[in-house]
């Protein structure tokens, strides 16, 4: 493993290992910094939630139901980040330089609740975290429906909310709120990233069939993909709208088979993706067409098996082999796999980075007072070092400007280890793949 000498980090292998051990001793904390609570009026859970020697993070993820695996993965990434914060791990300090241990000297505690992939339950859990635990931030989501619901709750309750996985354009579009910040990639940026690669690798003269889950996330990905692909010369021959959770895709696959397409763009997520791909294989479509997954869900390759994913193009928020290019990414991958025994999927990474960036914002603000933290998020400063390289927040719609990974499925024979499912084809920089901030109707609310 090579080490780059990142300025300011001075990392050695030994210290990386030590921090990976996750020390949580009470004596690790520096003196609490004075947070001048008297200077700011009460708002949301401030100052109650921040007046003691700890602050609470509410983890609201699905642990049962369709997206449970991604949810569990997210939880692990978040908890790892919290552990690193409390121990002052060098990785966290690299991302959030002002961090010593904890946040503003306070220990970070957390609780997790199962949202069961139901927006209702997610809202209930979050409310519980906010009122009962005095959470200073709520984090987690796999479906955009929950993310959107929690966006609004956050605005209502004046407590920060950080989505984990949320692919719809609307989360920082028409459903954006002043109190939420999205780290992960989404329909527009994913499409903008993958289409040039597809045009290069597959050519400009292609006929694409779309298999779209019939809900907002699906529609936005379809809109973005067709916008870019058609501009590049591709023809959209059919759009098959499948109900969410449909077990049998034969109707749609038959239509696609007869459409004359040579590319199948599958927008399905989670279980829907697994089922539709398996059935597409059974209908012989994967032998005739190239499969493109513009928004890969976590663990897809594992569930579908590499036989079906070989040669498939997709985008993901993070892929663990990126560690070969970026030492911070590698540190993350190492810490995670050491603690949990498998390579992190992108839910875990999104969770980790969200916490790290939150810590950064709070330390920059010097207080937990929400409007000040929001200002810190919005101040336009670039975060020089992260597991994704340089990233920064866009003030106008609270979307993180960050690269998108375009990956390609590996043949089973080429896999060097159990989790080595994808080759990273390109890491597309964030700046060029984002829409104008108001393109999707984002109107941030008030901070107070």
């Amino acid at each position, binding site marked *: 493993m090579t080490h780059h000498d990142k300025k300011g980090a001075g990392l050695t292998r030994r210290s990386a290992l030590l921090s990976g051990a996750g020390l949580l001793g009470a004596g690790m904390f520096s003196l609490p910094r004075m947070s001048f609570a008297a200077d700011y009026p009460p708002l949301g859970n401030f100052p109650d939630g921040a007046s003691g020697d700890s602050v609470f993070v509410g983890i609201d993820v699905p*642990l*049962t*139901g*369709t997206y*449970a*695996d991604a949810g*569990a993965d997210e939880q692990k990434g978040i908890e790892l980040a919290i552990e690193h914060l409390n121990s002052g791990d060098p990785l966290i300090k690299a991302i959030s330089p002002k961090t010593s241990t904890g946040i503003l000297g306070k220990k970070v505690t957390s609780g997790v609740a199962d949202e069961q992939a139901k927006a209702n339950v997610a809202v209930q859990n979050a409310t519980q975290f906010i009122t009962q635990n005095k959470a200073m931030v709520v984090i987690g989501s796999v479906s955009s429906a929950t993310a959107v619901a929690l966006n609004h709750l956050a605005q209502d309750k004046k407590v920060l909310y950080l989505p984990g996985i949320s692919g719809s354009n609307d989360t920082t579009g028409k459903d954006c709120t002043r109190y939420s910040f999205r780290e992960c990639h989404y329909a527009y940026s994913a499409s903008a990233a993958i289409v040039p690669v597809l045009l290069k690798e597959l050519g400009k003269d292609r006929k694409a069939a779309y298999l779209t889950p*019939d809900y907002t996330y699906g529609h936005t990905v379809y809109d973005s993909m067709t916008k870019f692909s058609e501009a590049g010369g591709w023809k959209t021959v059919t759009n*098959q*709208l*499948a*109900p969410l*959770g*449909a*077990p*049998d895709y*034969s*109707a*749609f696959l*038959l*239509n696609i*088979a*007869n459409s004359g397409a040579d590319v199948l763009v599958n927008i399905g997520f989670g*279980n829907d993706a*697994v*089922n539709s791909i*398996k*059935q597409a294989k*059974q*209908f*012989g479509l994967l032998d005739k067409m190239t499969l493109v997954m513009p928004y890969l869900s976590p*663990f897809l390759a594992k*569930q*579908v*098996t590499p036989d079906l994913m070989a040669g498939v193009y997709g985008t993901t928020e993070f892929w663990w082999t990126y560690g070969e290019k970026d030492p911070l990414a590698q540190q993350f991958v190492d810490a995670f796999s050491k603690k949990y025994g498998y390579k992190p999927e992108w839910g875990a990474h999104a969770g980790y980075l969200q916490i790290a960036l939150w810590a950064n914002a709070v330390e920059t603000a010097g207080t937990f007072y929400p409007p000040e933290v929001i200002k810190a998020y919005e101040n336009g400063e670039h975060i020089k070092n992260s597991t994704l390289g340089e990233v920064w927040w866009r003030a106008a719609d609270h979307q993180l400007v960050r690269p998108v990974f375009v990956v390609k499925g590996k043949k089973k024979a080429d896999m060097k280890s159990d989790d080595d499912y994808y080759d990273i084809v390109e890491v597309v920089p964030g700046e060029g793949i984002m829409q104008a901030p108001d393109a999707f109707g984002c109107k941030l609310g008030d901070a107070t």
Partner: protein
Amino acid sequence: MLNWGNFLSQLFNGLVSGALLALISAGLTIIYGTLGVLNLAHGALFMLGGYAGFVAFQATGSFVAALVCGTLFVGLVGIVLERVLIRYFYDRPDEDQILVTFGLGIVLVELVRVAFGSLTQSVPPPAWAAGITPLGFIIYPTYRLVVFGIVAAALGALYLLLYKTRLGLVVRAGIEDATMVDALGINIQRTFMLVFGIGALAAGFAGIVNAPIISITPNVGDDILIECFVVVVIGGVGSFPGAIVGGIIAGEIMSVTSMFDPSYSAVMLFAAMALVLVARPQGLFGTR
């Protein structure tokens, strides 16, 4: 513009999925007809079959072994459940039976979730059945054809059991009048146990047969259960031929409507059910 190739494919598709539904519903309907119990845990038994087969497949690598083990396991579970729990409910009001099987279904699903997690599990189709078969001008996955064959054989076996064996005679008599059968001195207890076991067997069998087509998760049985209700209502509660005809009809409704507007498939199914309830409440073949 109707694409005839598509249409025919869909018709065929409906036949295949309908046959599967018919098998599961047949189990549900003979349990209700004989024991008078509406088994709301039936979907969970279907799911259990998938998982049992998956475990067997992981252990042996053989699809046939998976099929056999999965089916037998669920049949055994059915017998145990009947002996340990269900039989105490025969004299209880209908609602109690519905409720206890409903609760049982939830417990089974959650047990599986705790044991296996929510990750989707896969069972690949056997090598000899993978690939596609050209059928005239439509292409069709070979495995689905195989499923149709297997399910038809299973339904045939069930038919032989019901109409050509002594047990089957007792079962059909019991469907008509359980008290009388009991009064005749036939061991109705043992019959009930076997019937529940057979019904569970059918559901479990369907579960593992279906696994290569749709992935198995703990909740995979939920929608199947509701579709079975529709089949049983359309075909007539307690009627084996009703389950077959109802299953085919339901399968076809879902397949054909999905050609036009997929989001309406399920609604069309329920609309058909409502229609039957209004026009002929006892179903096509039912008598009560």
